[in-house]
């Protein structure tokens, strides 16, 4: 949050990304960077290409042009699980939890990449496999404590109310101990109180764990409050990039949000 503990290192650099589906251009030559330890917001009207941008960052979509540099490594195409191995975790606009599994199992699944014993040990459930399972259970419990969801530990997530599901999804992403956390509308559909809770968790994650966060959000007051810098997209183009105050003052942004017709 505060200026002094923000290091100038660039964690993620997006350069000239263009993505199209058939003839539709979803993203058009987008460039921006994310500094280590900051909270970076991506805003824009519906269909601006925000989710597509996140999908490019974690390798789910493959942009036709441009490149992404994460932790100094540049890549053009990448599979999502490789991105996860590099330390990128995310949540989804429409909740994408594993419905048939309990909260605890969902969060444990988030730690999958960190578990190494082979399946023969697991079939025996002895020695290394058991030690590993216990060690990760402890880590998962820390996440559960952090998000205050102890009481729903063993509940199948399909039965949880919407707000809690969102929280479990955040937990699953946190369990991976990512360097970069992508949040796709973490507060969509929440009431005021739930939003405040979620904001608190996001700030705590950023503060206590030092996780860099990129988030998409529609609620302007939230965005302006918690983010360090904001990127504004509109119809696949980059409209503005800067601190909340700068963005708020930008005429293009105001036009886009107030619905001035495009020439």
């Amino acid at each position, binding site marked *: 949050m505060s200026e002094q503990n923000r290091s100038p290192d660039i964690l993620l650099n997006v350069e000239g990304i263009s993505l199209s*589906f058939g003839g539709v251009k979803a993203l058009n030559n987008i460039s921006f960077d994310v500094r280590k330890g900051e909270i970076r917001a991506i805003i824009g009207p519906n269909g601006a290409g925000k*989710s597509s941008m996140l*999908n490019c960052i974690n390798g*789910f979509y493959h942009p036709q042009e441009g490149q992404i540099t994460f932790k100094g490594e540049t890549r053009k195409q990448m599979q999502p699980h490789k991105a996860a191995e590099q330390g990128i975790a995310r949540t*989804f*606009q429409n909740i*994408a939890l594993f419905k048939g599994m309990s909260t605890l199992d969902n969060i444990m699944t988030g730690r999958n990449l960190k578990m190494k014993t082979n399946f023969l040990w697991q079939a025996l459930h002895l020695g290394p496999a058991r030690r590993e399972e216990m060690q990760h259970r402890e880590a998962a419990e820390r996440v559960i404590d952090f998000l205050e969801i102890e009481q729903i530990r063993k509940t199948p997530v399909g039965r949880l109310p919407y707000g809690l599901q969102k929280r479990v999804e955040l937990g699953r992403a946190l369990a991976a101990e990512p360097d970069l956390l992508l949040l796709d509308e973490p507060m969509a559909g929440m009431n005021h109180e739930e939003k405040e809770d979620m904001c608190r968790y996001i700030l705590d994650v950023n503060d206590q764990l030092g996780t860099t966060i990129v988030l998409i959000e529609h609620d302007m007051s939230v965005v302006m409050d918690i983010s360090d810098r904001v990127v504004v997209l509109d119809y696949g183009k980059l409209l503005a990039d800067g601190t909340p105050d700068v963005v708020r003052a930008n005429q293009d942004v105001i036009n886009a949000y107030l619905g001035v017709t495009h020439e």
Partner: protein
Amino acid sequence: MEFMENVFVLPFLDIADSPVFFLEVIISGLLSGVMYSLVALGFVLIFKASGVFNFAQGAMVLFAALTLVGLMEQGVPVVIAILLTALLMVVLAILIEHMMLRHLVNQEGIILFMATIGLNFILEGVGQIAWGSDVKKLDIGIPDQSFEYAGMLFNTLDLSAALIAAIMVTTLALFFQYTGTGRALRAVADDHQAALSVGIPLKSIWIIVWSVAGLVALVAGILWGTKVGVQFSLVLIALKALPVLILGGFTSVPGAIIGGLIIGVGEKVVEVYWGPAFGGAIEGWFAYMLALAFLMFRPQGLFGEKIIERV
């Protein structure tokens, strides 16, 4: 070495040797392909309108054919027997909707699929208890004779089947494209709940489409039954419709037709020319392997649209 020759050289020599015979093989393949298309059509109809992959389509073919033969054995005149069977298929559709589909609205596709496997067994059991499980001959007066034309052998039954199939396909395509019911059917296929919310009567739509599929099954049953006799193996023939669907795409009526023709021709040609090299009976799996190979390159089928996944 000899095997390699049998696979890579001799068949082609044979083809070059007698192009007329090759043409005859292809035509007979096309005609039996039409029969596959007919069964596949029943699948496509139900899948389009209810998103249900109806594994029981084969059992419906058997059930319809058994009922028809059974009635005719009781001395019922052909036309009345066909009408009665058609009526029974409609009743069956209503029963299926009431007892099964109604309770499975909005379930995942795979659950519905498994439920139709259950339905498959019920129909097989009921049909065979009611009408016995011996092989029966079905003759409703379609001529089954061979004749020669331009040096090639044809069969009147195959030709009638092709004609009937062509008529049915055209009718169904028009029905889907141009009637209100057709539009409603397509809406239901997209999303059960959304269709309900705009006031499409889901239940009656389902009854209609299962009835139509039942009637298609009856036609397929009559044609197959006349050709190979009414027997349990009709169910296995119906399974062949699955690779046809893979080729054609699950939601495309023309796809079902073309897929059927491809499988029909492919199977005949391979059996005639390559069968000896492999010891015969390739027909049992060729269609599935072809579909499998095809899936690897074009998972959405010939006519399906490419799906863009979103998160």
